[in-house]
Each structure stands twice: as C-alpha cells, then as structure tokens.
C-alpha cells in the first residue's frame, strides 16, 4: 500500500469513529456513558488534527479536552445526583409528535445547508506563509509559539486574564454558603 492511500484510509476510519461515538454520546441515557463516548470523540478528533498537520493542537486537544474538561465533567456528574435529573422521570410531558418532526426537519435543513456550504462554496483566500513542509522543518509547536508571542500577543494576554476570571468565578459560584 502506498503512502497516499494510507493517510486517506486512516482519515476515513477516524471520521467514522468520530461520527459513531458522537452519535452515541448524544443518545445514551446514562450521562457517564455520554461522557466516556465524548472522550473517544475527542481522541479521534486529535488523530484528525494530526493528519491535518496540526500537531500542537492535537496534543492540546488531548490535554485540555480529553484531560481537563472531561475530568471536570465526570466529577460533576458524580457529584450531582443523576437519579433526580433522569430524563424519563420528568414531570413535564414529552414532546408531541409534531414538535419532534419540526425539530427533525430543522436539523435536516441545518445539515443540508452545512454540507452544501462545505461542498460547493469555493473558498478564495491568499495562500499563507506556512506550507506544511516549511512548518515541519521548524517544528509545529515552535511556529505556533512564535505566532502566539508575536503577532497574537495581545489576545494571548487577554486569554490569560479570561482564565484568571474563570478560576475566580468558578470558586465564587461553587463556594458553599455558610
């Protein structure tokens, strides 16, 4: 098998894994099962990022999403009592047939629109200064780092303040009142 086919086949398999695991994530009744399928989705997305020459983002995906965010979500799922949030035992009436059909129609329209845009819209842009070979020669993380601390320094600083506010806000909100 030649190298061209290998990358494409790997992409197709990973894309299938992403779609199947995200459908399972959205449909499982048990939130913990949802969270575990979400982790599978995130890892498969990291593989796709690797195939698209974004090594730094792939590692950040595994560390931030699959590591930090999903761990936080699993903690909260285990902290709150899920029996009381059960979707079956709700006091509200389930959706009527017409409402379900309207939602399904809306979603089909959304999907068709997105696919139409993805397949038929010809993107035109100036080709950038970072072809894959040149980036690979320097190193992907090094290139991203040079951009973050150079051209995007101000947004980077704003992001750090945002993270600080997030930490303080989470502690303030979740603090148990005496």
């Amino acid at each position: 098998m030649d190298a061209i086919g290998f990358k494409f086949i790997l992409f197709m398999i990973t894309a299938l894994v992403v779609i199947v695991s995200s459908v399972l994530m959205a449909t499982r009744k048990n939130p913990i099962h949802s969270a575990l399928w979400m982790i599978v989705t995130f890892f498969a997305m990291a593989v796709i990022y690797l195939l698209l020459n974004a090594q730094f983002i792939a590692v950040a995906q595994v560390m931030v999403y699959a590591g930090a965010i999903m761990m936080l979500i699993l903690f909260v799922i285990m902290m709150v009592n899920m029996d009381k949030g059960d979707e079956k035992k709700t006091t509200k009436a389930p959706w009527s047939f017409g409402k379900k059909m309207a939602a399904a129609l809306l979603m089909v329209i959304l999907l068709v629109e997105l696919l139409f845009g993805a397949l038929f819209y010809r993107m035109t842009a100036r080709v950038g200064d970072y072809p894959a070979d040149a980036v690979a020669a320097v190193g992907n993380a090094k290139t991203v780092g040079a951009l973050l601390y150079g051209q995007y320094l101000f947004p980077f600083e704003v992001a750090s303040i945002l993270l600080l506010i997030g930490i303080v806000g989470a502690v303030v909100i979740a603090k148990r009142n005496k």
Partner: protein
Amino acid sequence: MFQEIPSGLCLVLSGIIFSIGAIGAITRRNVIVIFMCIELMLNAVNLAFIASGNAFSSMDGAVFVFFIMTVAAVEAAVGLAIFVMVFRLQGTVNADEVNLLKG
C-alpha cells in the same frame, strides 16, 4: 511526502459533527449532556478552522483553535460550577425542571 486530505471532506465531517451536537443540545434535557453537546459543536468548529488553515497553508487556524480551547476551558469551569449550584438549590439537573426565575 504524504498527500494532503481534501479539505472539503474535513468540512463535511465538521458539518456532520456540528449537526449531531445541535440535535443533542436541542433534544436532551440533562444540562450536563447539553453542555457536552455544546463542547462537541465547538470541536466541530475547531476542525473547520484546522482544515481551512491546512488548505491555505496558514497558521492562523491553529492560533484561533488555541483561543477557542481557552474559552471552552473557562466555560467548562464556570458552567459546571453553575450546574453544581443549581443542583444544590433545586435538587435537579433536568433543564425542564429548573425554574428559578419563575415567580
């Protein structure tokens, strides 16, 4: 060198994942699952950014994804703190049962 994956395929995959996330966010009632569906939609957008950045041999896609990840992390911390608080006050995480603002 390996041949690149056509960017159209990545955008199609991104659209499919976004739709799955949107369907989940609308139909589910558990706020934590809704939150995970929103994370999935954010991931679909990240994939679109990376795919276009790769297609145009630009690094801006990766930088934008970095910032989106930052915002997603902050959102996760604050959002989950709010869910814990709502659970303490209301005793439920079902989105239909939460009616704190109702008089």
